[in-house]
């Protein structure tokens, strides 16, 4: 994957690796490209940086429909809405998995391939970097004057002593040294290299990257996401049957949910009432009471946007709110068959003009259904109701009544926001507008519906991600490693000493050559460092020569 170093060639490492090039030597001698060769080639391709980048780009591209189109997981009501408004297009989008992008097979394919690519790239590279961090400097090249930086001077010291002095100076400067071994006959040189921390940083970066991948996988396998709509005054327990949506990780079962219970005591939303920003929310406050364990002490908390509650290892976020008008329905016998706040969902038209349905499956003699619109601050604009402010200053509802079969006695589970009117007939020709406290008498003595008031609701997202903290730590470590590998450069210094040139005097003359090169010297500064080092070496040599002279 990403190599934090710029591509480079090393004068001492002619065999710099190119992973994404088919190697001539890898095919069999006969020139045929067998299955094993194809597999090897495919693996090399997959783990190349180019493919990893393409996959990363694809992943980003594939996420686009997830944010453009309504998603089944996060907003099933909007998906239903999309089906209604685009009846021809929606089934095709569904077939392509575009309403559930993050669970679609093609999305999983991209993700898994990217994962494979990263693992296949990072693991071998980690070994390589670990090896590189342990290596000794290379042997001193023969012609130091050809290196980017070099210096030369003569000194009255035997070559062996001169190298010894140089080694002491370089070692004192924190260089890792290499001296001639038996294979180098009787040569006098020392190689020194510094900046191994760069490799350590690089290694840290790659290991941390693997850590991030593992953390994300951890979150996916052992975490969960859930949604719950909670009407003011109601309670819920964190158990699957009390959640509206539940997306568990692979290893999460119903028993793994934190057993907390929560009550919404009160929800307040304030809006700016004048000026350009009129109607914009200024503050939210959801006061909840919760207990961490059944029978545990009750605590209160004020949920706000971006102020989640941490409970039982899970985080509870406030992600939305709306109005739930309260209705009471009596049927033909005069029995109260429905009496509850009913969450309505705000549409796109603004100012919380909200839509919802009331289903009364146990009304006699026929089931009743209502589609309704809740208008928090209603004004009549040419015969149609519009909401001019999001707060409920003049709340009205507008209802259309149906009777017949709701389709709730068999078949597929229904959305609580959709009324299937295919087996029902309309009882009212036009929408009936009700103020708070007003009733609508249904024709044929079928009963009445009364709009008794309204309460707010909030929607909560409950998430548990055990990979969050490890991912954060690994992310910081990756950044630290990256900085380390950018700021520290590897540099090598070589010192050679040989006898001569002879000046004819009695003194032993030795030519000292100093050469140096820095790799990836992006930030510069090696020139000055080398000059300083060469001067230090020279003065150390002169001092040693002085001592020797005095000693004689």
């Amino acid at each position: 994957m990403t190599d934090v170093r710029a591509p480079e060639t090393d004068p001492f490492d002619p065999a710099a690796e190119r992973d994404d090039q088919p190697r001539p030597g890898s095919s069999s001698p006969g020139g045929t490209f067998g299955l094993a060769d194809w597999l090897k080639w495919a693996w090399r391709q997959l783990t190349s940086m180019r493919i990893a980048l393409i996959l990363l780009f694809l992943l980003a591209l594939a996420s686009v429909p997830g944010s453009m189109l309504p998603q089944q997981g996060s907003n099933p009501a909007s998906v239903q809405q999309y089906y209604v408004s685009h009846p021809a297009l929606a089934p095709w989008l569904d077939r392509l998995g575009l309403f559930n992008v993050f669970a679609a097979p093609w999305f999983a394919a991209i993700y898994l391939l990217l994962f494979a690519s990263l693992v296949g790239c990072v693991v071998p590279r980690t070994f390589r970097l670990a090896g590189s961090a342990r290596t000794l400097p290379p042997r001193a090249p023969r012609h130091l004057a050809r290196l980017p930086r070099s210096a030369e001077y003569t000194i009255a010291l035997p070559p062996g002593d001169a190298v010894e002095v140089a080694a002491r100076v370089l070692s004192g400067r924190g260089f890792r040294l290499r001296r001639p071994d038996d294979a180098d006959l009787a040569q006098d040189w020392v190689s020194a290299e510094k900046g191994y921390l760069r490799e350590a940083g690089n290694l840290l970066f790659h290991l941390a990257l693997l850590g991030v991948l593992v953390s994300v996988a951890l979150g996916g396998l052992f975490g969960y996401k859930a949604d719950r709509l909670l009407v003011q005054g109601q309670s819920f327990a964190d158990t699957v049957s009390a959640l509206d949506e539940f997306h568990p990780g692979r290893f999460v079962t119903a028993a793994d949910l934190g057993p907390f219970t929560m009550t919404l005591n009160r929800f307040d939303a304030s809006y700016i009432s004048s000026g350009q920003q009129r109607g914009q929310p200024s503050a939210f406050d959801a006061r909840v009471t919760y207990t961490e364990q059944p029978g545990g002490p009750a605590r209160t908390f004020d949920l706000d946007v971006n102020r989640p509650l941490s409970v039982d290892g899970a985080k509870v976020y406030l992600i939305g709110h709306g109005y739930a008008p309260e209705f009471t329905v009596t049927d033909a016998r005069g029995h109260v068959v429905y009496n509850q706040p009913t969450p309505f969902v705000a549409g796109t038209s603004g100012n919380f003009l909200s839509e919802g349905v009331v289903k009364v499956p146990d009304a006699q003699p026929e089931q009743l259904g209502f589609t309704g619109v809740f208008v928090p601050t209603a004004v009549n604009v040419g015969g149609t109701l519009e909401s001019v402010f999001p707060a409920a200053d003049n709340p009205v509802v507008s209802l259309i009544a149906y009777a017949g079969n709701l389709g709730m006695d068999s078949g597929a589970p229904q959305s609580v926001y959709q009324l299937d009117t295919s087996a029902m007939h309309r009882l009212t020709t036009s929408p009936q507008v009700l103020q708070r406290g007003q009733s609508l008498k249904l024709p044929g003595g079928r009963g009445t519906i009364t709009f008794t008031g309204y309460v707010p609701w909030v929607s909560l997202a409950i998430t548990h991600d055990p990979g969050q903290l490890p991912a954060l730590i690994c992310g910081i470590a990756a950044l630290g490693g990256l900085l380390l590998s950018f700021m520290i450069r590897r540099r090598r210094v070589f010192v050679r000493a040989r006898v001569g040139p002879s000046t004819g005097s009695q003194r032993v003359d030795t030519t000292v050559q100093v050469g140096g090169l820095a790799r990836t010297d992006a930030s510069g500064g090696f020139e000055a460092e080398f000059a300083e080092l060469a001067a230090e070496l020279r003065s150390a040599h002169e001092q040693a020569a002085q001592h020797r002279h005095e000693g004689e």
Partner: protein
Amino acid sequence: MLRALSPGLRRRTVVLAAAVLAGVLLIVVLATGWAGSGNDGVTTVDGNASAVVYAAGHRPLAPGFTATTLTGSKLSFSSYRGKVVVLNFWGSWCVPCREEASTLAAVAAKYRPPGVSFLGVDVRDTTASALAFTHSFHVTYPSVSDQSSAITLDFTAKVPIAGTPTTLVVDRTGHIAGAVFGTVTYPDLTAILAKVG
């Protein structure tokens, strides 16, 4: 620094990377097949995985609770000790609950003489809607209100209740002996009762 590794070492790292990847894939595959694995002491009824009987010794103790019935009286679950109880988690809003309602009423009528009690736990519902439901389906046994799902939560710690409806059969000693996850059928429920009763 990009020191060429010896061919042997290079091959080893490739093999290692492949092994790591294979491990990851194995985990994914195992995880995918995880849902089907079973526990000790659980037998299915008529091969139906959603209807199970727990063998003696593997029966979790049912949690106790005290709650208000739909008609407003207090009910303590401990008063059922010594009887076989069918505990049905339901809601008037729930389509499969409406589907199974007449089955439950029929089984309740048949097993009342041998002394099997039925008790409903009405989940996420209102009293008005729930009472209208019991009238529609002629439900004669009592139900307690579990608007906040607190009772459901207590039972979820013992058996994996993943939604409504769920039906549990509690034996005479107060242990959960059988369960139907999802819509109850007449043969499943009577088969469980035959093994527990």
